[in-house]
């Protein structure tokens, strides 16, 4: 099997293109939900579609038993109505019955999905032949898609992109500050209605490939991943669409390849598309949460540790400044850190040219002395600022200054010097070293 086959082969291309477009549409809607902090609504509405799906298939099974190829239309209509009723129920519970929103969402999810499961078991005996339609919609099965699905999903993906492109600015205002948007005359009610319709449609259409149960994961994961990389809404939408498309693509390929690889002559194994797509999508989200350059966990930790290391180094230089030279044991007593980390810090300081090492004793180099004295200067300047300008008690200023000496920029230093009229003594009557 060739990579290109997934896009061109008459059997393979429908699932590939279908899931691709569907995932783009749902991840764009996901960004809207994510920024509105309403992600759970996707979970409730997709589960709530289940009873509608079953009733739709039943109607088709009873009245048009010979037109099985049209079952998908009945599924779409049933699912849409069922989700719409669920949405109205949630809104009614929140506004009229004053139920907290998370409780309303949970209640509707459980109620509708429960009813759906009951219908499904009844159907197993009444319409056994049609039951398989429903089973595939629980976890999604892209493999049986046809070219008509490509058209349908392409249309949906396109309409989501066009919608967001057209109303981008009012949408941004609505998501950021709804009350302002309403007060300034943006037709908020119409916009919200359009968003919900598009959301419902994308959830329902997505069920075919991801399934009722995992649909919300597909909606949200790309938005979570995209948020990690940017601080602009249009870039976030663009990235989410890319992440969504990639999840759809790789999820589908994994499902096909995996099912082929693990199946034997006797035993057929099927990896449903839905879980595969969601796994790929959540992997993107997880990796982004860890490794995104600015907001990612790993780089944040690295920045935190490198700041701590700098504080430690600067404290060490500052300590040496008073004495000029110190043996290893003296340094250890001063800083109270483990031998290994002290050794590491000293090694770095020697390598960077601030210290020299001779017969077990460490000396400040000429550059080291200058650097140390500039740190002491910042410390004492800030102490004086706290004590004189802000009228803090002299005993209390040392601790704050201890932190600020590592943070003050040259610009702040210049302003401090000017404000305090280039002082010579700190509040403890110690000399403030001259600026070099």
């Amino acid at each position, binding site marked *: 099997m060739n990579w290109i086959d997934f896009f061109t082969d008459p059997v393979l291309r429908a699932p590939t293109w279908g899931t691709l477009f569907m995932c783009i549409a749902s991840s764009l809607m996901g960004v809207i939900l994510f920024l509105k902090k309403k992600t759970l609504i996707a979970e409730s509405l997709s589960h709530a579609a289940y009873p509608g799906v079953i009733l739709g298939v039943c109607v088709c099974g009873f009245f048009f038993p010979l037109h099985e190829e049209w079952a998908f239309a009945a599924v779409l209509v049933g699912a849409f109505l069922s989700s719409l009723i669920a949405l109205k129920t949630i809104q009614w519970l929140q506004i009229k019955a004053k139920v907290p929103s998370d409780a309303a969402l949970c209640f509707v999810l459980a109620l509708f999905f429960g009813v759906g499961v009951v219908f499904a078991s009844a159907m197993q005996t009444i319409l056994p032949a049609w039951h398989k339609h429903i089973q595939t919609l629980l976890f999604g099965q892209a493999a049986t898609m046809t070219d008509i699905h490509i058209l349908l999903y392409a249309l949906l993906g396109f309409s989501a992109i066009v919608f967001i492109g057209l109303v981008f600015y009012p949408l941004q205002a609505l998501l*950021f500050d709804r009350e302002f948007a309403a*007060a300034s005359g943006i037709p908020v009610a119409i916009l919200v209605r359009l968003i919900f319709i598009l959301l419902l449609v994308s959830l329902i259409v997505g069920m075919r490939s991801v399934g009722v149960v995992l649909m919300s994961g597909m909606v949200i994961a790309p938005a979570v991943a995209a948020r990690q990389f940017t601080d602009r*809404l249009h870039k976030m939408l663009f990235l989410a669409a890319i992440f969504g498309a990639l999840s759809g693509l790789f999820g589908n390929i994994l499902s096909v390849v995996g099912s082929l690889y693990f199946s034997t002559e006797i035993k057929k194994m099927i990896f449903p598309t839905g879980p595969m797509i969601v796994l790929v999508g959540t992997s993107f989200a997880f990796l982004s949460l860890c490794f995104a350059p600015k907001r990612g966990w790993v780089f944040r930790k690295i920045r935190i540790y490198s700041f701590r290391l700098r504080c430690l180094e600067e404290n060490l230089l500052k300590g040496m400044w008073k004495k000029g030279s110190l043996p290893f044991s003296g340094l250890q007593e001063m800083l109270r850190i483990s031998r290994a980390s002290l050794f590491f810090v000293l090694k770095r300081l020697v390598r960077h040219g601030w210290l020299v090492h001779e017969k077990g004793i460490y000396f400040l180099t000429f550059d080291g002395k200058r650097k140390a004295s500039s740190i002491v200067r910042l410390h004492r300047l800030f102490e004086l600022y706290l004590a004189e300008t802000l009228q803090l008690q002299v005993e209390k200023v040392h601790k704050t200054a201890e932190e600020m000496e590592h943070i003050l920029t040259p610009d702040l230093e210049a302003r401090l010097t000017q404000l305090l009229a280039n002082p010579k003594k700190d509040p403890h009557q110690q000399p403030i070293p001259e600026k070099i």
Partner: protein
Amino acid sequence: MSDDLKCYSMDVEGLNVNYGQTPVLWDISFQIPKGLLVGIIGPNGAGKSTLLKSALGLVKPLSGKIDLLGEPISSCTRQKIAYVPQRGSVDWDFPITALEVVLMGRFGRLGLFRRPRKADREAALQALDLVGMSSFADRQIGQLSGGQQQRLFIARSFVQNADLLLLDEPFAGVDLATEKSIINLLRAKKEEGKTVFVVHHDLPTVEEYFDWVILLNTRLVVCGPVKQVFTRENLAQAFGKNQGLFDEAAVLTAKSVSGIL
């Protein structure tokens, strides 16, 4: 008297507003002329923000009417009114820049499908400059300080070119320098002939800042020129404890009306 002078900037008659079972505003009536800097003063939970929100049609009153610039709020009058919500009401981690926030002031006029033009961008940049924030135009809003965020909201209301400005607690959580610069900007707006309403709760500055005050504590205590009505007795009535009995009675009626009792 000409038509323009006849109508008030804010005209409230018999206004009642409830949140669930709690009455927030109770039978409020007052009229305020145009061209003033008006303070809306009262203790926490007095219904100050609710008064603004019902004027804007964001909260539905139980009964009564509230007119701005001589008309009830409509899509047409909204173009003449600018609203500055409380700073805490939005998510400052939202992916948006300072300039984009200010630009929002133009979207109401542009409608659903039109994009902001070059003129709108220029106006937004000028407004940012006016509040002293032009160097922050491309910053993500979460990186701004509290005072800067507040000035951003003020800039957004200025690009609306409104005749009436309604500001909800613009001085909450900002430093003194920012407070002074904001009040000077608002005074300049008044000099241009605009009317400015400011929800405020710092009593010592009231006489310095405002021409008129509305003293509010669920009921209207008093409304009028600050020199005449900002008296010790009126303040005691607005902030005092004599209110307790009235509050209890009000809660009881509201419960009966909504079917709880």
